[in-house]
């Protein structure tokens, strides 16, 4: 049983894309899609809230891939695919609701991926800068700081963090995601200085 998806596995995502672009064959495209199918379907289910709509949207994304991959130069397939999936769901929601104008809530569909190469660079450069890290952590909001401490230092699970803090699971996850992102932004700025 494979437990993780490694986009660098053989063949890599980018190799499959190159093979599809060269041959237009659905074989590499299908392999690529199957690798991420559960993520696409799960995300569609989250946004569309209905199983039949999520199934249709997943099929639509598969069909869109045929043309979009030929039109775009994709460097990070996973983040590109997430954006494509989110946009498709957004269009579908607008169509269902008959909305034409831009929704202010579009921002929730924007993907903010912390690219691995930036993180690797950060780890390399800041590994010994513990004071900078302490300063960054001290600047976090209390809820974020507490969740970061319990999750990363105490190595508690989401549920255990929730039990310890009295927050619900959604709040714990949100504090961890926002806290880590804020730390990342702070350290990236510090690295520039």
């Amino acid at each position, binding site marked *: 049983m494979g437990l993780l998806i490694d986009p660098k596995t053989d063949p890599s995502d980018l190799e499959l894309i190159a093979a599809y672009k060269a041959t237009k064959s659905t074989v590499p495209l299908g392999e690529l899609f199957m690798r991420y199918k559960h993520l696409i379907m799960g*995300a569609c289910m989250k946004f569309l809230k209905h199983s039949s709509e999520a199934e249709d949207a997943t099929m639509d994304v598969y069909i869109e891939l045929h043309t979009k991959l030929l039109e775009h130069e994709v460097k990070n397939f996973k983040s590109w695919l997430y954006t494509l999936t989110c946009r498709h769901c957004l269009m579908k929601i607008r169509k269902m609701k008959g909305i034409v104008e831009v929704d202010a809530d579009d921002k929730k569909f924007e993907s903010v991926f912390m690219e691995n190469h930036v993180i690797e660079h950060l780890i390399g450069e800041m590994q010994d800068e513990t004071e900078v890290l302490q300063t960054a952590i001290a600047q976090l909001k209390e809820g974020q700081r507490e969740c970061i401490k319990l999750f990363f230092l105490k190595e508690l699970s989401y549920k255990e963090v929730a039990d310890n803090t009295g927050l619900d699971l959604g709040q714990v996850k949100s504090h961890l995601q926002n806290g880590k992102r804020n730390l990342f932004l702070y350290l990236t700025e510090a690295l520039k200085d």
Partner: protein
Amino acid sequence: MDQDQYTVGNLFATTTCISKEMMLLYVDGQLTKSATRMVESHLIDCEFCDAALEGIQAVGTKKFEAMLETVSQRIESQQSNTHATEEKDNVIEFRPQVMPPVAKRSTKRFIPMMSIAASIILLAVVAIMFMGGDSASGIADQNFEKLALKTRSIETPSETLMQQASGLYNQGNLKEAAELFIQAGTAEGQFDAGNCYYQLGQYDLAEAQFKAGKNVESTFQEKSEYYLALTYLKTDRVAEAKSILESIVANEDNDYAKKATATLADVNDL
């Protein structure tokens, strides 16, 4: 608290996307503590996996697997058509004398041209036979043989139309694909046309195709029946959809019994 234990390395350790199997085990609470930590560490970093996980939690693992299966079958069906097209394209490439590089040419124009050519050859052969004589008969036999050879090498119209339709489908041109699928006149084409209309939101046309497919004995009969139920759901004809789904569920031999059960549960939740 042990503030000095924080390092950039342990806060920003690179994590990897989670497979379907691991996600399902996580949602069902069947992972070990260390595996749970690995998943949760990744969810902090990856919006895609996080969103997917929320979706799976919303629908439940069993239903989610049934949904994935439905999509896989739809894609496999589409891919088998496309593979056939790809293989046949290769054959054409190595037989330029039979079909010069016209794979991109419109089938609609190609077939009438071949029919005209065949008619002319037939007329010529009949004329030679009518003239009589051994040599004329010999030429006629040779011409018949050549014609027969050519006819055997040319794909039947339905195969060509299915190829053409699959190509259009893959390009996202569902409307024209549906028309060609219907022209192909096969049970598979009928189902594929219904699928195109379903995706286009033209449910009345989809219904007609699936209804026809449901009543003709073929390997697409059960599939058409299930998709007819989905079409009814799209048009708020819940009672009719439920009736079909229940009859599918009642038949254990029906390949769509599992999916119908999941869909029925979904309908009952509405």
